[in-house]
């Protein structure tokens, strides 16, 4: 579960990136986070992954209280949150298999667990036939699938996808979003940060809209339309 209570985040320059944000994303939920550039979306992701600490307010992520989390606990928090980025962030020198296995090795998994788990996750994302390929030999869509496999392999309870379709054509974007929905169906909480309004409308999930560091709406796309019409 992700819970923000009246969270304020100020940077050293004095400007507030978040102004009293409160929200709650339940376990197993699929949720979009939308908003213009500079609205505070990236700050929310950094707060969830423990990269930043809130200036005030409280944040609970998968059982960790982030306003008072110790530095040495952060790696364990991150094992519960898989992150997928727009630019994939894969290691080009490693093969598909090694990229995913690497994520398990660096958290101390046993070789047997790695041998069992990596092929399963790669099959889940549809890359079971490309184990020995290198990222630069693959399309953008395939690279993003690989990034999702890496985020999934340590079995996190939450996946955060930061503009996962930003570098992809519409068809591949739809496939990636469908894959995230499939992962959500298996019980993983999914938070997608996106600018892709068409996909948000298509998937009909909860949408949290943020602007100037404040939540301006929270509900499904249909609810928001109804609210707009009523106004």
């Amino acid at each position, binding site marked *: 579960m992700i819970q923000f209570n009246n969270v304020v985040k100020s940077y050293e320059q004095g400007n507030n990136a978040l102004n009293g944000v409160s929200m709650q994303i339940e376990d197993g939920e699929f949720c979009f986070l939308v908003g213009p550039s500079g609205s505070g979306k990236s700050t929310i992701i950094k707060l969830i992954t423990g990269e930043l600490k809130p200036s005030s307010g409280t944040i609970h992520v998968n059982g960790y209280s982030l306003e008072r989390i110790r530095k040495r606990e952060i790696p364990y928090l*991150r094992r519960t949150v898989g992150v997928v980025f727009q630019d994939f*962030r894969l290691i080009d020198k490693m093969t598909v298999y090694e990229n995913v296995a690497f994520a398990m090795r*660096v958290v101390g998994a*046993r070789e047997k667990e790695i041998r069992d788990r990596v092929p399963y996750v790669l099959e889940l994302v549809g890359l079971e036939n490309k184990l020995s390929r290198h990222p630069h030999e693959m399309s953008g869509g395939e690279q993003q699938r690989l990034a999702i496999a890496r*985020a999934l392999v340590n079995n996190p309870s939450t996946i955060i996808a930061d503009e996962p379709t930003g570098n992809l054509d519409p068809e591949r974007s739809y496939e990636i979003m469908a894959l995230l929905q499939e992962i959500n169906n298996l019980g993983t909480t999914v938070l997608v940060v996106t600018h892709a309004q068409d996909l948000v409308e298509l998937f009909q999930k909860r949408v949290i809209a943020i602007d100037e560091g404040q939540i301006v709406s929270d509900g499904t796309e249909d609810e928001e339309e109804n609210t707009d019409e009523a106004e």
Partner: protein
Amino acid sequence: MRLNNIGYLLKEGFRGIFLHGFMSFAAVCVTVACLLIVGSFSALAYNLDIMVQELNRTSEILVLIDSSLSDAEARSIGTKINLLDNVLQSTFVSREEALEDFVADHDDDPAFSGVRAEDLRHRYVVVLEDNTKMEQTDEQLRQIPGVVKTDAAYELAEGFSTIQDVLHMVSAAVIAVLLVVSLLIISNTVKLAMYDRRDEIAIMKMVGATNGFIRLPFMVEGFTLGMVGAALAFGLEWAGYDALVQRIAAVDSLQLFSFVSFQELLIPMVMVFAAAGMFVGIVGSWTSIRKFMDV
């Protein structure tokens, strides 16, 4: 940390060396170059120190014996001289031997043909253990009954001591500066290697690797590179030193410079090179990686 993990971390450390071959090569080359400079200067300073010590040994005190004493009485004074703490060696020179030296020193000049042995005194040539105590020992020699006069070159002895002190200070300062500069250069090279792998480190942080887990392979890598660099530098230093000493020994005009054999420097050199290699590798990677850990 499980045994399985330690094996993986060590393997990763060694794999990193080959995976980032060019940066590893650069780090080893820089380590070799820096340690060679430090090692060569240290060897030179050590040899100069020994040469100055040897030159200093040649400072002697001439002890003149009362001419009224018989030969046997004059010779017996040697025992008293040798009993003094700071006396390394004393050599008796009879008045006849002194005359021979005198005549030889003046190229058999006929002007001195009238000088007889009886005009001269028996004497001792005294070599000291520590020339800095020359004045004190000279005083003790003059207190010995039968000694009428001494001749000691205080200024020369002091000059050598000053040269030795200056040499010690200058070499310590130069070696310290060279070590610091070497550390900075090597640490910078390691930093470049880390910069090359910042994405890898960021991914490790992102998926939840602990700092210790991230650091250890880099430390293994840094340690190995440092030790390889130190071993190569040591081998080159040995070969280069031996070749230089042989060349100097073969040139007559350079006989004044007598260098010690590398075997005499072996243990301190091995220790210094190994310590420097280890320190540079481990500290270099530790400090360099810190910058990329704050993610």
